């Protein structure tokens, strides 16, 4: 009996070992191209650029190597499409554009579904050699295994803050082999943003709250978010920063807002058709005695941010986005 148990155990161990080897072997195959690429390369913003390929760590944490100049590209996320377009890239397929920011270079591309429901069949039928998608989207990531099985290269990216933008523009311009566009939309934007941040006075202790326009809850974003980072760079302390529940969006205590009474309250929009929402939300705030007692509301520093720069990612207009906030916070310096 004991012998039988030992035998079964050994077989199980062997199966696990072999299975492990299988995975390892597969990884080797996946990385094979990279090994073959050993040679001269330059590395910028985390992207290693070889003569005819580009290597980077993608949004899944996997090291990926891609051939330059992909010809048939499908993009499933419009923030990336804009960057791909400014990097001189062309697409054959994209999702329905709900972003109010139509991309001229993509207007002839096939529509392969919507942000929430891209069609795998449609994508595969276009026979792309590369699909750009959002690593932070569950719906996008569910497509990955099927796309990979069809031999399609995957560019799964995360884009939360400006460093991500510079990495993406570096990656895309390396793929399209357009260093001129990297200088224009990458390096120049970075130096413009840096020079704005340099002008920010460091001796002022001002606080801010960054809210998401919502009909129901008081939802806020901290300094790890897109606009949150800009406010932090502009030397505003975000009152919702803290170790507790550091999620992308969190419901925040109105009591704490009243207690900390921030100097600025910025409101970010979450969807289209929201100019009317602005007016109504503002009216609501002013008619609610608790909100109306806040310094920022009383003194006109309850600010609704325009969506083209602060709801959608600013991308190559980052400097404009920083300057816009700079003018509000430090009018003497930036006007």
């Amino acid at each position, binding site marked *: 009996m004991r012998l039988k148990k030992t035998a079964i155990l050994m077989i199980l161990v062997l199966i696990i070992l072999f299975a492990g080897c299988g995975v390892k072997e597969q990884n080797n195959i996946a990385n094979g191209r990279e090994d073959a690429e050993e040679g001269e390369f330059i590395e910028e913003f985390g992207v290693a650029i070889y003569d005819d390929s580009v290597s980077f760590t993608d949004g899944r944490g996997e090291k990926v190597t891609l051939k330059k100049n992909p010809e048939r590209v499908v993009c499933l996320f419009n923030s990336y499409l804009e960057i791909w377009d400014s990097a001189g890239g062309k697409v054959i397929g994209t999702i329905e554009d*709900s972003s109010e920011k139509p991309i001229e270079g993509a207007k002839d591309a096939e529509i392969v579904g*919507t*942000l*929430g*429901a891209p069609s795998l069949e449609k994508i595969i039928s276009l026979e792309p050699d590369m699909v750009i998608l959002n690593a932070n989207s569950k*719906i996008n990531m569910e497509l990955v295994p099927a796309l990979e099985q069809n031999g399609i290269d995957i560019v799964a990216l995360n884009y939360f803050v400006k460093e991500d933008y510079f990495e993406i523009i570096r990656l895309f311009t390396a793929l399209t082999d357009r260093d001129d566009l990297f200088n224009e939309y990458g390096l120049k934007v970075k130096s413009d943003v840096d020079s704005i941040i340099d002008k920010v006075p460091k001796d002022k202790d001002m606080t801010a709250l960054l809210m*998401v*326009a*919502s*009909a*129901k*809850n*008081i*939802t806020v974003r901290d300094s790890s978010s897109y606009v949150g980072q800009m406010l932090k760079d502009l030397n505003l302390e975000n009152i*919702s920063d*803290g170790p*507790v*529940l550091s999620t992308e*969006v*969190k*419901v*925040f*205590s*109105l*009591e*704490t807002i*009243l*207690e900390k*009474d921030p100097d600025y309250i910025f409101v970010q929009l*979450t*969807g*289209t*058709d*929201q*100019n*009317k*929402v602005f007016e*109504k939300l503002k009216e*609501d705030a002013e008619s*609610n*005695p*608790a909100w109306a*007692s806040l310094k920022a509301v009383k003194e006109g520093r309850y600010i609704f941010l325009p969506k083209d720069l602060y709801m959608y990612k600013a991308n190559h207009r980052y400097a404009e986005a920083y300057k816009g906030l700079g003018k509000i916070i430090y009018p003497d310096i930036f006007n």
Partner: protein
Amino acid sequence: MGRKAFIIIGFALLFILSFFISVGNGAVKVSPGEIIKVIFHQDKSMHYQIIWNVRLTRTIVAALVGICLSLSGAILQGIMRNPLAGPNIIGVSSGGGLAALIILILFPRYYYLVPLGAFVGALMATMFIYGIAWKGGVHPTRLVLAGVAMSALLNAGINGLMTFYPDRVVGVIGFMVGGLSATTWTQVKTIFYYAMGGTAIVMLIPRKLNILMLGDEVAVGLGLNVERTRLAFIILSSLLAGSAVSVVGMLGFVGLMVPHIARLFIGHDYKYLFPAAVLLGGSTVMLCDTLARVLFAPAEIPVGIIMSAFGAPFFLYLLRKREAIR
């Protein structure tokens, strides 16, 4: 005084205690002395704003929502003679939810119409379910099944909207899980009359529900117009739950669970069950909302999550401990 009266007094004390716990705790520490001071001398200070315009409104809305939902559940479980009946079963959550989502996602500029829309959606779903279940009369089982099917259909609409407009979902989640994060005196006013009116009505007519509980034939034999009474109760419970959903979002679990907990303590007689459900419903939402505010302060978690996380195990414990419910 009988045992049941003692239990009701116990629930009343719990209600009062819950009220003080809810007003006394929050993300910002305010001492009891300070609380009393700001309530009596309305000095417009920061603590006054916190207690009077944030905590008090929130506590009152929580209590009223709890009252409305648990009364609605108690009524529905009675008239359908089905322990699984609750505001969800007559389409209140899904009907109200779909209406609210249509506004929030497709017509966000009219977001201020969400309470009204949710209320109308809830009532329409109830009426539709009632209409479908009607076949020379409404059999409770048919009503429950029609409700389940209708809710599935409405939920498909909700999920469809969320799939096609994922970029607009951020502002919507608050409604889906139910929350009290931004309550105002306006909301207190919205729900106050429903809660008080509903409570007054059901307190006056527990006998009719007791008769309905005996089964349709017996009820007819006792001279009750079964269909009309049942319809009146369904409308009443839809109004109660609809008003709650319109204010806090989809918070259906209270309506299912609280009446059962009350029943486990006090039995099936609606004369006692109604006051018990009112007091326990209010206490439950007040206490759960206090936890939702305090546990991860200054971040908040939706009260619906707390309610299910703490309420469901407690309910299961009672279920094992006490005699089986009907």
